[in-house]
């Protein structure tokens, strides 16, 4: 039975320790990212900024580091945790995992240094923004290699039978991640020396950055699979169809490095646009099929609004679907602030938060319980993301070119103020939800397990 796939007993202690390390790295990175966000807010606050030890460029360095920790490291360390759950048992797998975890954590420490030491030119290029400092690049590279080591041990699962849904999905995730790394490497090798740093950063992370969006989507689908198994005892789709969904995303990722041979000049416009089309053509179908399965489950089975697994399933599907619909069908007019991207990623975050609280923590002998904090957290984060996206959508609607004279202009300004207020309110709600999540997860990761506490007589 798939529901018996992962239990406290099925995961050997070595793997449990490794997985705990990855989850700590993932949630810890979120905590550091949140602290950086607070600091960068303070660095723009009059009076307070005089007390901080950093110069005026701290803001962008901190912003870059915040983005890398809360998008890249959080998802990649989560992939590391998933790999510890799914990797076939064996000494080599354990060694690769441990080494990967050490490198993954060391890389994060290294990439933090330039921001804290106030050094390096910040660049807000797409997908993986960077601080232009050797230590930052080295840190990114070391972290990436760490996650790669943890991922390679999953590749045998791709052709092993029988295929177990969630494990097969995670193996597809490992394949997608390795394809993204190959894209980064090819871009690095192909971009001519002496290219302007801004353009270099943009193009070196462009292709692989797009492939990482396939990985984020796959992580969400693995979360749907696991949460559905936890909540209903089986996945949202028949196993063969679920596996096909995972494989469909992996196929696109595996073909992506070909673009560096077929797509023309790596600095050209064709190359850039073909990767944009990757997300239009390759991304929507698999989560659509699996999302329909999840929706059917949510409608046809009893709804337990107290269960974290149910809440994570329902809210992540809803937020992801709203964002996906806005992106795919409305085309969202203003290309600069794609409101749909926030919602789509918000849906992925909700799925992964649910995965951590309702699947990973129990595997580590901890429980998230059904307490109010868990429910409040999911609602705050989910509705916050929706309000945030709505605000951006309104702001985008205000930016549509049209005749603006006299009174119209005043109305326009008011409209902009209101919409930015809505964005701010959404951000506030989501941040609050995020803080509660990080707090709940860290407390549970750091305290003795339920069994240990029972042994020492505390409970």
């Amino acid at each position: 039975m798939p529901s018996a796939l992962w239990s406290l007993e099925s995961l050997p202690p070595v793997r449990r320790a490794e997985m705990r390390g990855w989850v700590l790295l993932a949630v810890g990175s979120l905590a550091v990212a949140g602290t950086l966000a607070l600091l960068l807010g303070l660095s723009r606050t009059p009076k307070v900024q005089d007390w901080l030890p950093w110069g005026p460029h701290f803001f962008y360095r901190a912003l870059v580091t915040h983005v890398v920790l809360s998008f890249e490291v959080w998802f990649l360390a989560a992939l590391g945790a998933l790999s510890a759950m799914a990797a076939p048992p064996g000494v080599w797998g354990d060694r690769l995992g441990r080494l990967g975890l050490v490198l993954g954590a060391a890389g994060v420490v290294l990439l933090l240094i330039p921001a804290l030491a106030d050094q390096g030119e910040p660049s807000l290029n797409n997908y993986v923004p960077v601080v232009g400092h050797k230590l930052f690049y080295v840190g990114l590279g070391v972290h990436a290699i760490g996650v790669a080591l943890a991922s390679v041990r999953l590749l045998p699962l791709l052709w092993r039978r029988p295929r177990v849904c969630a494990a097969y999905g995670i193996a597809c995730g490992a394949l997608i991640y390795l394809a993204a790394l190959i894209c980064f490497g090819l871009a690095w090798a192909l971009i001519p020396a002496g290219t302007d740093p801004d353009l270099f950063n943009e193009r070196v992370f462009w292709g692989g950055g797009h492939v990482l969006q396939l990985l984020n989507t796959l992580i969400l689908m693995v979360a749907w699979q696991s949460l559905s198994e936890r909540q209903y005892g089986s996945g949202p789709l028949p196993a063969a169809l679920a596996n096909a969904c995972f494989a469909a995303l992996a196929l696109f990722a595996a073909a992506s490095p070909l673009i560096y041979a077929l797509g023309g000049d790596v600095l050209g416009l064709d190359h850039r646009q073909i990767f944009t089309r990757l997300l239009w053509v390759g991304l929507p179908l698999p989560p659509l099929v699996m999302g329909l399965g999840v929706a059917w489950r949510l409608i046809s089975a009893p709804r337990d609004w107290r269960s974290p697994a149910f809440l994570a399933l329902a809210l992540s599907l809803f937020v992801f679907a709203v964002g996906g619909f806005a992106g795919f069908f409305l085309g969202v007019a203003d290309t600069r602030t794609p409101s749909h991207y926030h919602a789509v990623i918000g849906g992925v975050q909700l799925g992964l938060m649910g995965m951590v609280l309702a699947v990973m923590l129990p595997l580590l002998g901890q429980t998230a319980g059904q307490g109010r904090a868990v429910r409040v957290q999911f609602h705050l984060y989910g509705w916050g993301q929706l309000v945030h996206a709505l605000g951006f959508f309104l702001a985008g609607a205000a930016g549509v070119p049209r005749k603006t004279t006299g009174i119209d202009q005043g109305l326009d300004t008011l409209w902009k103020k209101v919409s930015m207020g809505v964005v701010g309110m959404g951000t506030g709600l989501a941040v609050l939800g995020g803080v509660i999540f990080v707090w709940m997860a860290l407390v549970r990761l750091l305290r003795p397990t339920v069994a240990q506490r029972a042994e020492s007589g505390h409970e």
Partner: protein
Amino acid sequence: MNSNARAAASALLLATILLLAGWLAGRTGADILPAESYAANPIDFVTRTEAMIAASQVGRTAEGMPVVRPPPGDVYVRVRRWEFSPALELAPGQTYRLHLLSEDVVHSAAIGDAEVLLEPNTVKVVTLKAPATGRVRIQCGEYCGLGHTKMIGSIEAVP
């Protein structure tokens, strides 16, 4: 039930392979703006731009740039971190040939839904028909530094 699932899975994978083939083959670049190009000396280009500004400025400025209302035909636009200058006022329905030259790094001009890459030392010429009224969106679409998102030009159709 099981065979239905297998059929659905096969259909999904078949659809994916078709989409994949379409993606790999479909690089016609419909959203790339057609443009002529020629090599130009940046100093000559600035001279031509200044001459156009002197001849056709309307006496106002927009965001620190002179507003120019050139006659239909050749129009010169300097491109650099992080501006398109000068600001243009065009006659509705008229056709213009925008000569764009980047003076520092690679930028791009996204006009409407299509885009052309602007490499230093090469002028790109795109044809633009002014709409009946309102603004024409022109902005940089290639990341070029911290001011990139504010790199938006000003083109407006004014009767």
